């Protein structure tokens, strides 16, 4: 029957569909209520014709699907997908509204179920990961509730304390603490609840734990308050620090050992220093005393030999004169030796005090020359001086004179008759440089360093000149160095020697 749609056919089609189809007239009263609508709501068409529909079909701008929640005959809720369209006559007049209702309650339920399932899955995952973390931790982790009961624990806790999970769950946390500390801990726990705050590991919370077998061990604890749906709880991480304590104790013992050893060493050192100081002082006292004791008999030996050689007490024959001369000369040499030894030991004991003063280098130079010149004159040695300095020195004048004297008397000693000695003083940056050049026998290269050694006498080259103490240059070198200067030698055998030294202009301020 193409083209022909008898009303019965249309009605049968409507009723065959599980969608609810309803039509309302312009007054909003139901004019059609399909079988599907009956199945959704529970009302029959007879009940509903002329009634107002249980869903809102009047919403403005309604086009396409819309979800609504409505109520069935039995009062239960039903979720609907509602599609409305105008009901027009053949002439195009609006007669009312038709609506197709789709019960989406099961669909929604399923949707909700899926969401719930997914959430559950996520929770399970989180729980599993939490568990993993909990179990992966190297420390015992427990959670306790407001009453101090253990409500969560990891395997490390079981292993550490020697209990099973079931033995611990629900037990007060003091279960893990030695009996004698429990009351104290309860008190502390109450305090903590009043002022809960995160206390990290190592913030001074040290406690003793007690295993099931009664053995105790040191633990360190960190606490974090946790607020959740289940109420207020505290997570405690308990770390067994027996090994660390042991290591610490060992380190402490080692440190203590070291400290004691060090203290002993220091004491020993202080004692040795004292001994050295004492020895030094004794040495100085000994030297002073010895010098005094040696000078006293020398005083009379020199004095009487001088007296004899003056022949005031009667004439001496030539031999006697010569003998007395020997005594006199050798006793003077002995005196010189004593003076030098004393001087050197004072320098070496660090007892030499420089007494700096401001002076012109010409002054000690002239003094030395006036005492050296007679000796030089005996050997017809000419001494020439060149001074090119316009600055004054701040140094120990007496010691500078001693340096000059030693170098010049050496020069005279080792220069043959008729030779020349040249003394030059010039300015070298912050120092005065003085050189004493002679036309003497010279010193081989190999001995240039050794001449400054104590008791060094330049071997065969001295050709019988064996005066002096062998200490003069050693003393001279030290005096120069005490002033912060340098001394050196340029010489070749047969070509004379040049001793040079420097003294900083302001060495007294060093």
């Amino acid at each position, binding site marked *: 029957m193409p083209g022909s749609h008898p009303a019965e056919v249309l009605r049968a089609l409507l009723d065959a569909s599980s969608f609810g189809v309803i039509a309302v007239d312009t007054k909003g009263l139901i004019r059609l209520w399909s079988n599907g609508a009956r199945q959704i709501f529970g009302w029959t068409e007879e009940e509903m014709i002329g009634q107002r529909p249980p869903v809102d079909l009047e919403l403005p701008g309604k086009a396409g699907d819309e979800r609504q929640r409505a109520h069935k005959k039995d009062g239960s809720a039903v979720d609907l997908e509602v599609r409305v369209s105008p009901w027009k006559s053949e002439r195009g007049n609006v007669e009312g509204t038709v609506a197709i209702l789709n019960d989406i309650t099961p669909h929604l339920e399923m949707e909700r179920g899926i969401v719930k399932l997914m959430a559950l899955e996520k929770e399970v995952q989180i729980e599993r990961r939490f568990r993993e973390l909990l179990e992966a931790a190297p420390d015992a982790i427990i959670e306790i509730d407001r009453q101090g009961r253990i409500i969560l624990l990891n395997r490390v806790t079981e292993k550490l304390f020697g209990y099973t999970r079931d033995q611990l769950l629900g037990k007060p946390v003091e279960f893990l603490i030695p009996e004698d500390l429990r009351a104290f801990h309860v008190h502390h726990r109450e305090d903590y609840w009043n002022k809960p705050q995160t206390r990290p590991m190592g913030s001074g919370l040290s406690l003793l734990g007690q295993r099931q077998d009664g053995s105790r061990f040191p633990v360190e604890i960190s606490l974090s308050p946790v607020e959740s749906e289940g109420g207020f709880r505290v997570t405690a991480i308990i770390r067994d620090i027996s090994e660390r304590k042991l290591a610490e104790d060992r380190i402490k013992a080692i440190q203590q050992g070291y400290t004691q050893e060090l203290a002993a060493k220091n004491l020993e050192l202080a004692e040795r220093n004292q001994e050295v100081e004492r020895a030094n002082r004794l040495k100085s006292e000994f030297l002073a005393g010895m010098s*005094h004791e040696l000078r006293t008999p020398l*005083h*009379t030996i020199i*004095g009487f030999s001088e007296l004899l050689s003056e022949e005031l007490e009667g004439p001496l024959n030539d031999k006697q004169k010569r003998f007395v001369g020997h005594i006199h000369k050798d006793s003077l040499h002995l005196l010189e030796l004593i003076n030098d030894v*004393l001087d050197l030991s004072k320098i070496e004991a660090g007892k030499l005090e420089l007494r700096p003063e401001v002076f012109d280098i010409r002054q000690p130079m002239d003094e030395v020359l006036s005492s050296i010149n007679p000796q030089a004159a005996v050997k017809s040695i000419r001494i020439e001086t060149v001074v090119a300095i316009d600055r004054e020195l701040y140094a120990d004048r007496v010691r500078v004179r001693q340096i000059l004297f030693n170098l010049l008397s050496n020069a005279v000693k080792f220069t043959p008759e008729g030779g020349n000695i040249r003394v030059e003083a010039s300015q070298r940056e912050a120092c005065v440089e003085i050189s004493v050049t002679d036309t003497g026998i010279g010193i081989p290269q190999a001995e240039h360093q050794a001449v400054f050694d104590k008791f060094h006498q330049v071997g065969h080259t001295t050709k019988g000149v064996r005066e002096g103490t062998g200490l003069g240059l050693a003393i001279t070198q030290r005096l120069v160095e005490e002033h912060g200067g340098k001394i050196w030698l340029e010489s070749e055998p047969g070509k004379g020697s040049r001793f040079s030294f420097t003294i900083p202009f302001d060495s007294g301020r060093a």
Partner: protein
Amino acid sequence: MKTVLIADDKPTGRELVRTVLENTGYTVIEAVDGNEALRCARESRPDLIILDLHMPGLDGFGVIQELRRDPQFAETPIVALTASAMQGDRERALSIGFTGYITKPIRLTLLRDEVERLLR
């Protein structure tokens, strides 16, 4: 003739100084220690006193302190004679009232010159 008092516990030391000064024309009195030096000084009122600093009992420092307290010896030249050669000894001696300072071993000319200078 001027009188010189020499105080030294060593007889050879005294004899040396005595000989040198007598040769030069002075009268010499000897004292063997500090106490005798004080007694001799007060009895003989010498024109110059030579004190060995190092004597048993009262040493040269003790003697000069005693003498300088006495107005009679306020101006008397007093010379220190010592075998000590430590730094600062001369300054110390001059600061407590010695007029001169001679170290042992003495050189005869130096002793003669010093005595002559002080008694001029």
